[in-house]
């Protein structure tokens, strides 16, 4: 990172509170100006660049430094053995970090860099999920699968790549969320075309499309006890779908409830998590805990910033979003702790609870920087892995 430091200065463009779409339907992220194109694209983007002419650095290094500055890591996934972490960024690259090397007692600076980085998609990698043998990555319109056993070798090729049946072939909507359904061995995809597609992992065919949302879908969650899927979308509703019949069971319009609605932020649902009886959702409206059977909001968590990722962990609810901290909440609505990370806002959290590697049991958080923060203990940030 010191390469770009003394030799190039940059004024950062304005941040985008609440997100805005750059092209078509995109996820809400805080992004600076678009990264400059290859080579001489320095006048592109919204900032200005001064290069002091003392010693002209090679173009590549400046380019790389700018890329690191504008990187956003959208998604993370842990390997089935628990020892590796895959992270996908907005340039379409996936980096594999070795958690066991970085957590061991002889960790050096190089252990905090990726073991291997490869370009997976042309566009950003919005979602990553792991089965017990494959890593599935989804970006602009396609899902690709990579073998975890092969991924550490150079020149890894995808095992298969599919795209769900879209109605119009003109626009290719992005896939924002992937969800594995282990009981039926199927993958659920949801994204810009407002439908949930279900793909059978053995045959690779798309079995069902669940229609009902009126705007693009941000997030998915699986309810274990009954085979239902929850999907949260830009149109402000959380819909429950029954997987056996393919019908919409319930619609919860979060923005209509006064306790949690925040019309100044919009009505979009950015994050969802469920515990079979309870559900947490947030985004434009405040982060709220819902009781699913009665569809009533029970606790509103008092945080102003919209949250982008939320998850249940033991007796806590962990959430992260705009703002550098990972927030830990108790179900009663009290804030138990706010632990700052190293990015200015966070987009994804990942808890490594794989039983095969209990020594790598960490929480990792990534957002709009090139760093992935590792929390060995929920109370403080241990160190950060860096994308390169």
């Amino acid at each position: 990172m010191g390469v770009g430091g003394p030799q190039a200065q940059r004024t950062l463009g304005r941040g985008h509170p609440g997100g805005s779409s750059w092209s078509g339907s995109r996820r809400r992220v805080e992004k600076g100006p678009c990264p400059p194109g290859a080579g001489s694209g320095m006048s592109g983007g919204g900032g200005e660049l001064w290069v002091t002419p003392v010693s002209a650095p090679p173009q590549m290094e400046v380019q790389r430094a700018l890329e690191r500055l504008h990187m956003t890591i959208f998604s993370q996934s842990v390997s089935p053995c628990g020892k590796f972490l895959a992270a996908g960024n907005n340039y379409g690259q996936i980096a594999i970090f070795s958690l066991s090397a970085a957590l061991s007692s002889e960790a050096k600076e190089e252990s905090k860099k990726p073991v291997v980085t490869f370009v997976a998609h042309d566009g950003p990698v919005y979602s990553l999920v792991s089965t017990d043998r494959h890593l599935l990555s989804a970006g602009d319109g396609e899902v690709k699968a990579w073998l975890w056993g092969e991924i550490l070798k150079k020149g890894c090729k995808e095992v298969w790549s599919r795209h769900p049946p879209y109605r119009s072939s003109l626009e290719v909507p992005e896939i924002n969320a992937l969800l594995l359904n282990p009981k039926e061995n199927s993958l659920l995809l949801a994204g810009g075309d407002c439908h949930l597609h279900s793909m059978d992992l053995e045959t690779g065919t798309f079995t069902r499309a669940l229609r009902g949302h009126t705007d693009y879908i941000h997030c998915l969650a699986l309810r274990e006890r009954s085979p239902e899927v929850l999907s949260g979308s830009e149109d402000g509703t959380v819909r429950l779908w029954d997987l056996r019949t393919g019908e919409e069971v319930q619609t919860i319009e979060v923005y209509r409830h006064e306790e949690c609605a925040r019309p100044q932020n919009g009505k979009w649902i950015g994050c969802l998590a469920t515990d079979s009886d309870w559900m947490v959702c947030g985004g434009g409206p405040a982060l709220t805990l819902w009781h699913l059977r009665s569809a009533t909001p029970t606790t509103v968590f008092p945080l102003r910033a919209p949250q982008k990722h939320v998850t249940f962990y033991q007796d806590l609810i962990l959430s992260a979003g705009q703002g550098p901290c990972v927030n830990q909440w108790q179900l009663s609505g009290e804030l138990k702790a706010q632990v700052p990370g190293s990015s200015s806002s966070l987009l994804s959290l990942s808890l490594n609870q794989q039983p095969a590697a209990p020594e790598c049991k960490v929480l990792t958080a990534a957002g709009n920087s090139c760093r992935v923060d590792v929390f060995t203990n929920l109370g403080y940030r241990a160190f950060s892995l860096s994308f390169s």
Partner: protein
Amino acid sequence: MGAVTDDEVIRKRLLIDGDGAGDDRRINLLVKSFIKWCNAGSQEEGYSQYQRMLSTLSQCEFSMGKTLLVYDMNLREMENYEKIYKDIENSIAGAHEKIAECKKQILQAKRIRKNRQEYDALAKVIQHHPDRHETLKELDALGKELQHLSHIKENVEDKLELRRKQFHVLLSTIHELQQTLENDEKLSEVEEAQEASMETEMKP
């Protein structure tokens, strides 16, 4: 590096005491003085040398005894340390087990706390709604009031019907009377006209 310093050390030691340190030197001196004593001349010198040799010998025996005692002591210390080491290992294993046990208890306690908090959250929502008994009582009261009011309404309507019917009877009787009066008037007019025409017929 280690090899060099070893050489240095050996060289220094060889330079400093050629025959070995302390006890080795004493034994060598003893051998030399024994040979000297065997070759000694006078009785007195021989006797003093003999005394000196005895003292050296006793010194050697003394240091030998000391070394043996130290050796015993070291052995016993070793055993003691072994014992302490084993004790500490056992207590470490015990502590590990206790830690695992406590971790399980923590998980259990967290689950309980989560359940309690879920219960509290639901209870808060339920509290907002009024009590079922009260609502039932209110419903009962309202039902009774409704009945009472409809009863009154029925009564009032009955009264109204009755009055209407009576009025109707009254009005119809009045009309009949009117009709009868009109009929009578007409009859009387007709009779008068008839009488008038009969009189005009009889006059001429």
